């Protein structure tokens, strides 16, 4: 079965403010309305990768090319972060 592709949603804008990476929900209601979401390095990296539709495996591959993973936790971290993004509709599956 083909792995699904995900992409970032236009309801969020990404801003780099000082040393911080921030998501600003501009078109959402509910718990994220009128908030600012500060992203750590992992989440900021993911956001940038999902600007164009891609699979989680592709993102993991790119991360391994760019960062060291001496503890071997990178893949779990990325999969966990993707789940969070999907849960809050920051990224959605592209059909």
């Amino acid at each position: 079965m083909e792995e699904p592709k995900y992409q970032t949603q236009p309801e969020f804008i990404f801003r780099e403010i000082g040393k911080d990476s921030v998501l600003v929900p501009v078109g959402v209601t509910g718990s994220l309305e009128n908030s600012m979401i500060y992203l750590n390095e992992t989440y900021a990296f993911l956001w940038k990768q999902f600007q164009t539709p891609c699979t989680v495996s592709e993102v993991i591959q790119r991360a391994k090319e760019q960062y060291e993973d001496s503890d071997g936790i990178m893949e779990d971290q990325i999969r966990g972060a993707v789940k969070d993004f999907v849960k809050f509709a920051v990224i959605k599956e592209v059909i």
Partner: protein
Amino acid sequence: MGKKRITDFEEKESLLLEMISDSLTLKSEEIGNTENTNSSLLHGLTEFAAHQSVLPIIYHRLLKEKNLAAEDREYLEMMVQEKAAKFYQILFNARSSIELLRKNGVSVALLKGASVACFYPVPESRKSSDIDLFLLRSEDVSAACQIFEANGYRQITEGQTEHANPHELWGTPDRHLLELHTMLVKPTEDRNFNEYVAKRFALSGDALLEKNVLGFSLPVFPDDCLAFHLLLHMRMDFFASGFGLKLLCDWVVFWNRKVEPALVENFLRDVEKCGMKNFLSVITSVCISYLGLSADGSGTLVEKDGDYFYENGLFCKKAEENLVHDFLQDVFDAERHGKPGGDRMMALQDTGILSYIRSFHHLTKLYFPKASRWVVTLPFLYIFVFVRFLYNNHKIRGGQSVSAVISSTKKRSELAKQLFSKTL
């Protein structure tokens, strides 16, 4: 870029001008690291820029200074995060306030703030401390007040400065300041001017643009009205106790874009009708000479034969250098943004005794719009206004002598005389 050599200002003032120019025109990655400036000067500059409300604007540029002290660097990081958070809170509140009013049939436009911030390379760097909304129909003010009251907004009357309209100041449910305007600028002594401005901005909702400001869709003026409003606002603040560099930065980023020639024409007609050609010339010349406003055709303006043009003709004459210098020095000296200048007072449009009397009478009419119609009350109202002036002089200006204040008024009024002419 053909920037003017800045030799007639203090070192930190000159450096600040250079940094603002770099920040408004270069991308962050184009700005190279530098170690020419000592840390003590940089520290003074950081404070000065904060007073001028432009520290967030020069953030990236300042960080390139290798000699910037660690504590200043830390302060900058904290300040930028705080300002950005505030910026978005203001934007969220503006959006929800506008939606609330519109849902209830009240037409409103967003002034200043985000409507101008979107032109900046880093919109969050344009400091905003409150939300400014303009009611397109002044008769909607009662309805707007009722809507706000019914939705958890709190009217603020305490601690308002002179000339404030009690309808104007509100606190949003999450405690941000909102100003509800029925006039774009405070009435002046010139009736023709006031009438022209009121008529010009008697717009229908259709005339507004739904602008995408960082993903938020907000109703703003079209470019000709926006430019006119920016200039009017600077004029109003100039005649009060002056304005800081932030408003000049707005001018730079506005005209560094390509503005439609037809809209520029409308704007220039407004400028002429309101006797602001010289003012436009000085503001624009300052911005081109010192702050990175381009005159090479990459934006709206191009320099030709010693003056400044847009696509359809003359935009403004190049102002005389001494006048440009004096004006910029006045901007630096502005009390609320720059050096502490306790003796600063408003400027008058003329320097004769009649001008002082006219301004005093005008102030009285502003404080007491109804009572001042009765001539018999005027002597008592004048006494009240004079006592209030003395009280404000003591409280706001730290008890500076009246003669120092009047001397400052005279100096500023001489500058005003060169900047403004009578309306047609």
